[in-house]
């Protein structure tokens, strides 16, 4: 009985630690545009990252071409192709670019995927109406950012 209580106590502590390790969008530490540590405190899942490349608020291939995802039609041409992107950038740099590309590239058109303030006429998603005033959710969660980064570091030539 003591043993089981102890276990569940440990589980509670672990959960608390995991939550507190998530870096809030307003507290991300950039060094020359790069972000060293995992935003979620957890490793990313590259297969989830590959999914996010093609869906929801990620939709990276709307603007970037990825040969490894050639089965997905209508890849965009706005940003640079991502083939070999892990040869050109470190994991920390990739995390920084996905989190907020404008830190490294001031005038980048790329949306800032882990940012919650400083917007002009922030809307309520795609309704065209004003944001309701509650907590602003970033385009991607900390874990989704990590998943995308985990996928991007696989793109070597």
């Amino acid at each position, binding site marked *: 009985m003591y043993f089981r209580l102890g276990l569940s106590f440990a589980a509670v502590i672990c959960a608390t630690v995991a939550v507190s390790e998530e870096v809030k969008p307003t507290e991300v530490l950039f060094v020359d545009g790069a972000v060293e540590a995992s935003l979620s405190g957890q490793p990313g899942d590259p297969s989830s990252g590959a999914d996010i490349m093609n869906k929801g608020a990620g939709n990276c291939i709307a603007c970037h071409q990825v040969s490894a995802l050639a089965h997905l039609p209508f890849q965009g041409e706005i940003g640079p192709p991502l083939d070999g992107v892990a040869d050109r950038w470190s994991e920390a740099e990739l995390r920084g670019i996905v989190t907020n590309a404008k830190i490294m590239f001031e005038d980048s058109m790329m949306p800032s995927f882990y940012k919650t303030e400083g917007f002009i006429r922030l809307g309520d998603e795609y309704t*065209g109406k004003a*944001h309701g005033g509650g907590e602003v959710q970033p385009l991607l969660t900390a874990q989704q950012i990590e998943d995308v980064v985990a996928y991007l570091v696989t793109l070597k030539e």
Partner: protein
Amino acid sequence: MKIGAWTAVAMLGLTSVTLAQDGNTLSIDGETIVTEAVAPAHLENLDTIYSGWRFRTSETQALQIDDFDNPAMIFVDQALDLFEAVDGSEGKSCSSCHTDGPEEFAGLHASMPKVVDGKLVVMEDLINSHRQDVMGAEPWKWSGADMQAMVALIGLQSRGTPMDVTIDGDAAPFWEKGKELYYTRFGQLEMSCANCHEDNYGTMIRADHLSQGQINGFPTYRLKQAKLISRHNRFRGCIRDTRAETFAEGSDEFRALELYVASRSNGLHVETPAVRQ
């Protein structure tokens, strides 16, 4: 055919915005429409302006070449009936005063928006003020079918005329406001009109081939919506898609933006009513 080749090049990722547009020329019932022109002097970042027609597939382009194929013409025909229809407390129709018919408005569209008595006025304003003040009729809804059909009918009278919007004098403060809006990065995606339509025209964003966002063909028949689309409705859609709170159709912000965007088309021929995807 050249547009097909051009698209194939685009798919290979070898595009550049400086790459020549397709060699097609737009001719409607024997009348040549200028779809490419030297950019007006006020445009700092573009050398050449292109009609949105140049960025569309050959199938969509073909619908605009012949008025019998142009689905917008059904609405223009309806507007001809509306022009003759008595409405309101004064027992008048448009034609009660405009006895020469819509042809009286040749050239008007090419100069709109314009400042009248200190106010920036777009075509919808002119139509509704005449309906209310002269006919004693209810104003039409901005993007309603009647309104946009009438805007298209009046615009058609200027088809083939170069866009020539005044930007100085009384218009200057409105134009400056519109320019500021054009370059403002709105919403959670933080995108301005310029991000897509000035910096990246000619490239693909997902399945969309980005144009310069010229409005010389508005109202346009938009195939995906199967009706005439007003300029302000299109502005609203783009700003909404940046995850922003949009401005209202008929707002002063959109009037100013319309003036600025129309001035970016100065030199292109009016194509109203155009057909787009």
